[in-house]
C-alpha cells in the first residue's frame, strides 16, 4: 500500500492540472463563441494573424 504515497498525489496533480487548464481556457475566451469555434476547426486557411491576436 506504500504505492498510495505516489499514486494519490499523482492523481490529484493530474486532476488539478485539468482544472487549471479549464480555468485558463475559460479566461482566454475560448468559450465565448462555441458555434464559431466548431467551424474554425475545419476551416482550411485561416488568415495569418498579423499580430498576437488575443487581448
Amino acid at each position, binding site marked *: 500500500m506504500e504505492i498510495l504515497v505516489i499514486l494519490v498525489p499523482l492523481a490529484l496533480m493530474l486532476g488539478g492540472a485539468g482544472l487549471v487548464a479549464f480555468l485558463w481556457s*475559460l479566461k482566454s475566451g475560448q468559450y465565448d463563441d462555441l458555434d464559431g469555434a466548431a467551424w*474554425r476547426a475545419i476551416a482550411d486557411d485561416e*488568415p495569418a494573424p*498579423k499580430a498576437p*491576436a488575443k487581448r
Partner: protein
Amino acid sequence: MHVTRDFSHYVRAAGEGVQHIDLAVEGVHCAGCMAKIERGLSAIPDVTLARVNLTDRRVALEWKAGTLDPGRFIDRLEELGYKAYPFETESAEVAEVAESRFLLRCLGVAAFATMNVMMLSIPVWSGNVSDMLPEQRDFFHWLSALIALPAAAYAGQPFFRSAWRALSAKTTNMDVPISIGVILALGMSVVETIHHAEHAYFDAAIMLLTFLLVGRFLDQNMRRRTRAVAGNLAALKAETAAKFVGPDEISQVPVAAINPGDIVLLRPGERCAVDGTVIEGRSEIDQSLITGETLYVTAEQGTPVYAGSMNISGTLRVRVSAASEATLLAEITRLLDNALQARSRYMRLADRASRLYAPVVHATALLTILGWVIAGASWHDAIVTGVAVLIITCPCALGLAIPTVQTIASGAMFKSGVLLNSGDAIERLAEADHVIFDKTGTLTLPDLEVMNAADIPVDIFELAGRLALSSHHPVAAAVAQAAGARSPVVGAVEEAGQGVRAIVDGVELRLGRPSFCGAEALVGSVDPEASIVAFSKGSERFVLSVRQGLRPDAKAVIAALKARNVGIEILSGDREAAVKSAASALEIPEWRAGVTPADKIARIEELKQRGAKVLMVGDGMNDAPSLAAAHVSMSPISAAHLSQATADLVFLGRPLAPVVAAIDASRKALHLMRQNLWLAIGYNVLAVPVAISGVVTPLIAAAAMSGSSILVMLNSLRARSTSREIV
C-alpha cells in the same frame, strides 16, 4: 450640404495606440461568411484584429489608432455583402456575460472535485465489502473532505447567495433546500469522518452541486444568448439621425449622442429616430408604426413627430424633444407601466414546484429523525438517517427538469425564426388559447407592394421601376423593388411632391401623382388602402396600385391556428374598411377597427375575465401596452423598438409561420417540463422510503442521484425534434 458619419461614440481604446469597435453584422451564419469577413477586413492595412463571433453575430475590430475611419469597415462589409452596424454593449449584457462565466467556472471546479472525490469513493465502497483497513478508509475520507469542502464553498456560491437573499426577504426558493442539503451533508460527513464512521457523503454533496450547476449554466446561457440577439437587433435597426453640427453641415450620429434641443434633418424615406417637433419643411409622414393608421399625416411647422414615423415626401427639420423613446405618447407610457406591473405576478413553473417542494422535504426529514428516536434509535443514528433523506431528496433532477427543456426548446425555436425575450415565455406561450392579431405590420407586411404588377406590360413596368430609382419616396422605392430595377434612368429630375420625369430616346417618361402624369381618368374603383402612382410614357398612361400586402402565408397560418382550436381575432387601430377587407381575406370573423391602445387592453382584460389566456401579436407602438397586458406576446422583427422590448418573443422574416411554430414548440416543451417534474417526483417517491428506512449508503445515494438526473436530461432532448409540418 456635407454629411459625415460619426462613429466616435462607439470606438474605444484597447491598449496602447490601438482602437477597438464592435460591429453587429446581419446575415452571418456559416463558416464561409466568417472566413470571408475576416479575410476581407484583415486585408485593410493597419487592422490588427478582425474576429467574427458566430454565436453573437458580431465582429470585433482593432486597428492602429488614428489611421482608419471606422466607416471604412462598414463600407468594406457592404462590399462583401453584409450589413453591419456599430454596436454598443449594454450594461445588462455585460452582467449576463460575467454571470455566465462565473457559473462556468463554478461548474468546472465542481466537476473537477466530483471526479476526484468519486475516484476516492469507489475504493472505499469496494473496500467496505472486501478487506479495507479502517485507517485507509479514514485516510480516503479525509482526502475527500480536503477536495470537497473548498470546492463546495466556491462552487456553491450561486446557490448559497440566492438562498440567503430569499431568506433575508423572508421567502423561500429552490436554493434554500439545496443549500441546506449540501451544508448538512458536508457537515455530517466531517463529523462522521472524525468518528471513524463507515459512510461519508462528500461525493453526493459535490455531485449534487455539479448537476445543479449544469442546469443553472444552461438556463443562464439561454438568457445570455437572448440578450445578445436583442442587443444586435437594437444595433441593426440603425438608430442614427442626421444632426446639424453647423448651419449647413450635418453629421450622421447615433441616437445616444443626440440631446434634447438638437436639430436633426429628416429626409424622405427615412424613419425618425427621435421624438420632436417640426420646425421647418412640409411633408407627409406615415405614423402607422405608432397609431396603426395607414393613411399618411401631413407634417408642417409645429407638428409633433415620434420615433418610428416614416417621412414620405418632403425634407423636414426637427427639433428634438427626447432622444430616447422616453416621452412618446404619455398615454401609451402610462398604460404600459400599469400593464407591466400586472404581468410580473406570473409565477414560473419551477417556483411553483419549489414552493411545494421545500416544506414537504424538510418535514419528511424532521419526521424521519423524530420517528427513529421514538422507535428507540440513538440521536446520532436518527440524525444521520434524516440527513440521508435530505441528500436523497435534494432537488437534483428537479433543478434540471426545466432549464434543460428550455435550452433545447429555445434552440429549436431559434431555428424556426423565433427569438425569446424572456425566460418564462415558453411556459406562458404554451398556455395561450386565444390569439389577438394587430393588422398593420403584423398580418400585413411592413413594406409596400405593387398589387397590379401583372396587369402592366413587362417592359413598361421595368422602365417605371428604373425611373422610380431616382426618387426617395417610399412608394417609388416599392415600385423599383417590385420591378427589380437596378440602373436608374439617366437625367431623371424629381419634382418635390409631384413625381419624377426623364426623357429617354426623345420620349418623356413621368412617374408620380396621377395629375402629374395626366392619368386622373384611369383612377377609378381602386381599393381605399392603396396608394396610386401613375406612369406615363409619351401618350401611354398606366396606374400602379401600391399597398401593404398580407404576409404570404397569413391565410394558412390562420387556418393552422384554427385547427389547433385557438380563438383568433383582429384588433386594429386602422380604418374599418381596411380591417374588414383583411379580415374577410383571412376568414377571421371577429375583428374590430379604430381601436385605441386603452380599448385593446380593455378587450384583453375582458377575455382574461372569461379565463382565456391571450397571445397578443403586434408591432406598433400603440400595441406596446397590450403586448405587456396580454398573457404572452409576440412581435415581428420590424416592430417599433418599444413593442419589441415589451414582447416576450420576436419573430424574424416575412412569413407568419413562426407564430404557429412557436406555439407548437412551446406546447411540446411545457409537456416535457411537466413530464420531467413527474419523473423527478416519481424518483423521490421510490427513493425516499429507502432513505427513511435508514439503509441508504453513499453508493445508493450517488447512483440514484445521477440516474434520475441523466433520465431527466435525456427526456429533455426530445424537445429538439420539432414537427416540420407547421402550416
